[in-house]
């Protein structure tokens, strides 16, 4: 039921390396993952904050779910300490190697076995930046979705969503049932409370394997992932540009000759 009392919100969160602390190894040109702390993905944390604000105001029940290795338990504890009521960890070798499709399939499969009115995901994760998992989940579950959410108000009857667009924003109304993907800057997340931290490890994180998910195994993990990574490489630094201080006519000539030189125009 929505209307203030029994609203159930499912929040999808992901553990990601803190990309602000990632360095490139100068020799191998690959990411140095060693010693890089893992954090709750910022957009997802914004989504959890939005759900918790609804809990504070209207008494919504907030469940968090993540798919990842056993260490992802940490962000679920953090979610408990922020105020989440229930936490589920999807962890199984069968989930491994998942691209966005297999991930969204697994999360949707888990969501089918749970009760919820609203699903909230972050817009995108800072390690992949695809922004695909949330919208794909809504498609699998055949529910309406609003992406790039920067605000959500509820007046007792209607939910009004502020959706960020490139030009500005749109105000959309919906009945509170569906999926939202959320932008972190719009929802400055709260800190864990001290009391919440003390209780976080006394609560149970439910650990679910592939057998608990309502989905055919062929759609999970590497098997269910059409994305194949052919090659990965570190972006090479470009040469610094050259500044020509010439008048407009000379500049046109110069640009045309440079474009011809690079075979961009003939």
């Amino acid at each position: 039921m929505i209307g203030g009392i029994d609203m159930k919100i499912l929040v999808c969160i992901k553990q990601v390396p803190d990309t602000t602390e990632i360095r490139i190894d100068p020799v191998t040109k690959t990411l140095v993952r060693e010693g890089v702390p893992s954090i709750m993905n910022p957009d997802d944390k914004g989504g959890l904050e939005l759900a918790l604000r609804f809990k504070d105001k209207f008494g919504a029940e907030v469940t968090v779910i993540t798919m990842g290795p056993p260490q992802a338990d940490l962000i679920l504890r953090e979610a408990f300490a922020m105020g989440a009521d229930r936490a589920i960890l999807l962890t199984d070798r069968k989930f491994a190697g998942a691209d966005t499709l297999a991930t969204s399939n697994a999360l949707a499969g888990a969501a089918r076995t749970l009760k919820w009115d609203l699903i909230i995901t972050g817009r995108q994760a800072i390690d992949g930046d695809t922004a695909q998992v949330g919208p794909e989940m809504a498609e699998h579950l055949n529910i309406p979705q609003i992406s790039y959410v920067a605000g959500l108000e509820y007046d007792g009857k209607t939910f009004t969503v502020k959706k960020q667009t490139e030009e500005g924003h749109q105000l959309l109304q919906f009945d509170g049932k569906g999926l939202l993907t959320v932008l972190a800057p719009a929802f400055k997340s709260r800190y864990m409370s001290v009391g919440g931290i003390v209780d976080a490890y006394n609560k149970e994180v439910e650990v679910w394997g592939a057998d608990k998910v309502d989905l055919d195994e062929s759609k999970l993990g590497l098997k269910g992932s059409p994305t194949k990574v052919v090659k990965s490489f570190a972006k090479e630094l470009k040469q610094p540009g050259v500044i020509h201080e010439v008048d407009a006519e000379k500049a046109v000539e110069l640009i045309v000759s440079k474009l011809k030189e690079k075979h961009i125009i003939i």
Partner: protein
Amino acid sequence: MNFNLTKTQELFRQMIHEFAEKEVKPLAAEIDEQERFPEETVKKMAKLGIFGIPVPKEYGGAGGDNIMYSIAVEELSRCCATTGVVVSAHTSLCMVPILEFGTEEQKKKYLPKLASGEWIGAFGLTEPNAGTDSSAQQTTAVLDGEEWVLNGNKIFITNAGYAELYLIIAMTDKSQGNRGISAFLVEASTPGFCVGKKELKMGIRGSATAELIFDNCRIPKGNLLGQVGRGFRIAMKTLDGGRIGIAAQALGIAQGALDETVKYTKERKQFGRAIAKFQNTQFQMADMQTKIEAARLLIRSAAFKKDEAIKNDRISYSADSAMAKLYASEVAMEVTTKAVQFHGGYGYTREYPVERMMRDAKITEIYEGTSEVQRMVIAGNLFGKL
């Protein structure tokens, strides 16, 4: 034996570190410059439960331990020593003594207000003529019917004017010396109580330090903390705990200064290379880091022992907290002085935080027992009665 923090303590460390970086650090220079009590930060800390860390949940606290409390003071002080001492004085010197010595009624009445941060607490022992020699108390408390009547002055009181509750030590029977001293709980709104002159200090300038004046201040009979004549013991036990807080404050200041110096010496170039590449820089900073880590271990060990003492009152952590405070405060003074030196002329300006840190560090060698008093406590424990 395990030197690792528990998962809970580690999660807490992450939270308080982030809180200090984002909410406390940006205000540190400003509150120092303006000598302003950080009321906005106090509100934020109250909301998170930082004022009730070691108080059980049944009294409205967070149900944490003294390791977590010491981490909180350390991390806050790493960014702002003023903010650290607000929490330390409140927790160690007012709230925890009520938890340890209060009646059930006092605990139920005061702990939820203090632990939630709705009320800030303070402690009054020092007088113009009674610092280290606390038996020379001139503040008196006389029982008159159902009320205690307090008269006298307390000085250098941390959180004065912002606290709603004061733990006050006063003489109830001068002929008994230390055994004639008792402890009382005085609410700020009590007639006959007022806050006097605010001190202008060298460091921790955002912290409110002022005089308390008792002029026929009448408090209910039930606001006696512990028994009559046990005030000296309560004060000494309270300071045993408080010294863990001040040691953690000193550690935080030292760590903050070291962090700033690492950053600065990597950026600052002289003779064509970063000064971090000079061996003198490296060797001196290796020593600073080693001393900081040693101080941290002493503090965590004392805090661990205090937690053990809650379960077993035969455990004493008095010398442990004195050693932690003595060492950490002297390390803080040494490290911050060297940090300023590494920063050169810039370090002497208020543009860089090490100048403030050096001023803040000095008080940790003085309050809640000077370094000399800590040596007395440690030696007393070492030699016993001579």
